[in-house]
């Protein structure tokens, strides 16, 4: 009963909404010369990440657009292929750039080898279905329809053939930019990026030809969320390129079919975004929301060279489903803006959480061990803990990790190296005549283990230093000194 009422009221509401939402073409009574068609040309379309150059013209023109639908198997990720349905042979579809007021003559061809009928709904069109009905095209046929670009903005286009979700899910979308009269401020670089989600029978990364999975699509659980149609389509070797200080404009679309994008570039702030691809702008934006079948224009420049990563900051999509693209910025460094790493110091709090790590059995329970026992236990400990940095032969790595083999620094120490292993070491030191300035972290060894490993080190690799006892380690732990006096460490 209640449902029925809701139903009724929703219908009424829908009718009201429909009434108001139907845009009536603006009546242009003043037949201004400025608005009459002046010439014609065929639109040059581009594949992502390229954008057609702006053709700066004053009066509207007649623009012919030819777009071909191609169904083909292509790479979705390494080792994974998919039967894509495309506008122009790639995903996303070709970028179309026209100007506000232009009259567009649109030819949609459906490749004869295709199996499906397709059409196109351009969100830039004012009219029923956005051209979808007018462009319904059987394989091996071409449909023609015309429209006038009444509103400027960045618009998504997509196939609207039943089942619509599947046609979009298989790759049938792209962007059309209707440049406002007078054009946009020129920039140094323009790119085209479109996010979309894919639903495959197999899990992310499962190799082979993957079929569309309607169940997952209905549950809105994509296996892939990608930029420009495949994992890595705009990163690594395919990354976009620009120079330091260049003004970059990206036309960003989100095809969905389900996901909403939290578009973000790691390491830069958008100077300007044209909200949802429309006329309103906003500034100093970190992350902008792009709805499914929506778009946005972002503008920024990178002041510091390096690789900048574009992500959907719904972050598991970026690092686990593919929603990641890159721009490589080259040029001179500017350390006043960003210095890179100036220092790396280990933070060793006096009583930090690290020390809450379940610590070694209490001292009283530990016993002194024989030389042989310490050597064998210490050898194992060395391999597991020290060899990673000081190398298995204890020769270290010149310039980074000092040698322990025949180390004067170690062998001459009064504490036998106990405090180094117990607390870590930090600062300039000289080992066998060579300087080192690195950081050895605190290693979380108990006193017995320290005695073992140091006994091993001090009696291997050509070193001869005798047993290190538990007592000695405990003494250092308590802040005392060993009886044997030697050279003092710099520290």
């Amino acid at each position, binding site marked *: 009963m209640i449902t029925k009422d809701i139903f009724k009221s929703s219908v009424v509401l829908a009718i009201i909404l429909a009434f108001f939402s139907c845009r009536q073409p603006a009546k242009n009574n003043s037949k201004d010369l400025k608005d009459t068609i002046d010439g014609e040309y065929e639109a040059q379309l581009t594949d992502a990440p390229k954008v057609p150059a702006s053709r700066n013209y004053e009066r509207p023109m007649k623009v012919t657009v030819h777009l071909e639908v191609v169904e083909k198997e292509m790479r979705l990720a390494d080792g994974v292929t998919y*039967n894509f349905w495309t506008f122009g042979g790639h995903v996303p579809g070709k970028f179309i750039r026209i100007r506000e007021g232009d009259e567009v003559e649109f030819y949609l061809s459906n490749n004869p080898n295709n*199996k499906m009928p397709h059409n196109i709904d351009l969100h830039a069109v004012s009219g029923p279905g956005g051209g979808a009905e007018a462009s319904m095209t059987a394989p091996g046929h071409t449909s023609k329809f015309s429209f006038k670009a009444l509103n400027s903005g960045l618009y998504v286009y997509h196939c609207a053939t*039943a089942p619509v979700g599947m046609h979009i899910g298989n790759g049938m979308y792209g962007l059309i930019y209707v440049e406002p009269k007078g054009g946009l401020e020129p920039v140094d670089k323009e790119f085209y990026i479109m996010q979309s989600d894919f639903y495959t029978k197999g899990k992310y990364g499962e190799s082979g030809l993957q079929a569309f999975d309607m169940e997952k699509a209905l549950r809105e659980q994509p296996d892939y969320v990608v930029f420009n149609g495949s994992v890595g389509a705009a990163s690594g070797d395919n990354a976009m390129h620009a120079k330091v200080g260049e003004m970059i404009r990206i036309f960003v679309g989100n095809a969905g079919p389900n996901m909403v994008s939290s578009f973000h570039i790691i390491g830069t702030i958008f100077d300007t975004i044209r909200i949802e691809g429309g006329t309103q702008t906003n500034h100093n934006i970190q992350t902008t929301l792009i709805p499914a079948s929506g778009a946005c224009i972002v503008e920024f420049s990178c002041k510091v060279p390096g690789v900048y990563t574009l992500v959907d900051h719904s972050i598991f999509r970026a690092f686990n489903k593919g929603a990641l693209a890159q721009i490589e910025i080259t040029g001179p460094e500017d350390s006043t803006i960003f210095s890179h790493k100036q220092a790396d110091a280990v933070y060793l709090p006096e009583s930090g959480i690290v020390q809450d790590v379940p610590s070694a059995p209490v001292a009283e329970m530990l016993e002194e061990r024989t030389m042989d026992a310490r050597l064998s236990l210490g050898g194992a400990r060395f391999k597991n803990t020290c060899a990673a940095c000081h190398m298995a032969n204890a020769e270290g790595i010149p310039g980074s990790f000092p040698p322990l083999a025949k180390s004067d620094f170690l062998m001459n120490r009064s504490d036998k190296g106990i405090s180094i292993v117990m607390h870590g070491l930090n600062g300039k030191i000289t080992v066998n005549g060579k300087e080192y300035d690195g950081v050895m972290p605190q290693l979380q060894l108990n006193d017995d283990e320290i005695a073992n490993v140091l006994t091993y080190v001090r009696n291997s690799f050509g070193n001869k230093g005798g047993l290190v006892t538990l007592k000695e380690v405990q003494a250092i732990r308590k802040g005392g000194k060993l009886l044997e006096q030697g050279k003092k460490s710099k520290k």
Partner: protein
Amino acid sequence: MHVLKIACFALISIKLGFTKESVFREKAQDPTVAQKEMVLVKGGNFTPFYKNANSKTIFVKPFYIDVHAVTNADFLRFVKENPRWARSKASRLFADAAYLKHWASDFSLGKDSSLLEDAPVTNVSWFAATAYCKWKGKRLPTLVEWEFAAAAERAGKALSDTNSLTAFILKWYEKPAPRMLPPTKSTFKNTYGLWDMHGLIWEWVYDFNMSVANSDSRNAPVNKNLSCVSGAVSAANPKDYASYMRYGFRQSLKANYTVANLGFRCAQNCK
């Protein structure tokens, strides 16, 4: 059973006597010759994919239907006997420019003929298919008949396996067509004994233009009071997107269109 069949032929032959009424001029062959390659689909209740507000199921009368789609070799025989349907002769009104474009010439399949002969004929228009059926003393199956026959499971598969049929169909739909179509009887036989109802080609049906639904699939027909169109079409099973795609495909067609993977098979009345 046999007696029934013979009775059925007799009736058909009588009916075919009225060639005056025929739309096309093709002379009908002796239907009993052709009948060998057909099976009887007994009919029954069928829930069409798009249901009307006022009807849920449709009663499908028994009919005969070809075991497999018409092949290039079959169609070549037809064209040779009815040269007005040759590639260069057929009017654009009845077949578009791609009509039989995969043949070498009007009356030759060309160097691939050994591969083409048993493959289903495609690149044929509705008019050409209709003319062929007439010549055979048959007709195109109606949309409902075709869907009814095509809903049958694969022979030898458990009925509970219907999901796999859908999966099979969809796999085929997703892929672009191969350069060279495989021969008929190369996919699967369904429980009626019909070959390749899915997975080989699309097939013409007699009343493919019956869907009044806007070809923009998202729109439903207009308000009842505004036209003779009755209530909104709604999918019998919204998840059956394989059917969605067949209906979508039919909506993209016009009767003179030819498509690289669209062929046909014939049907015949029983009574």
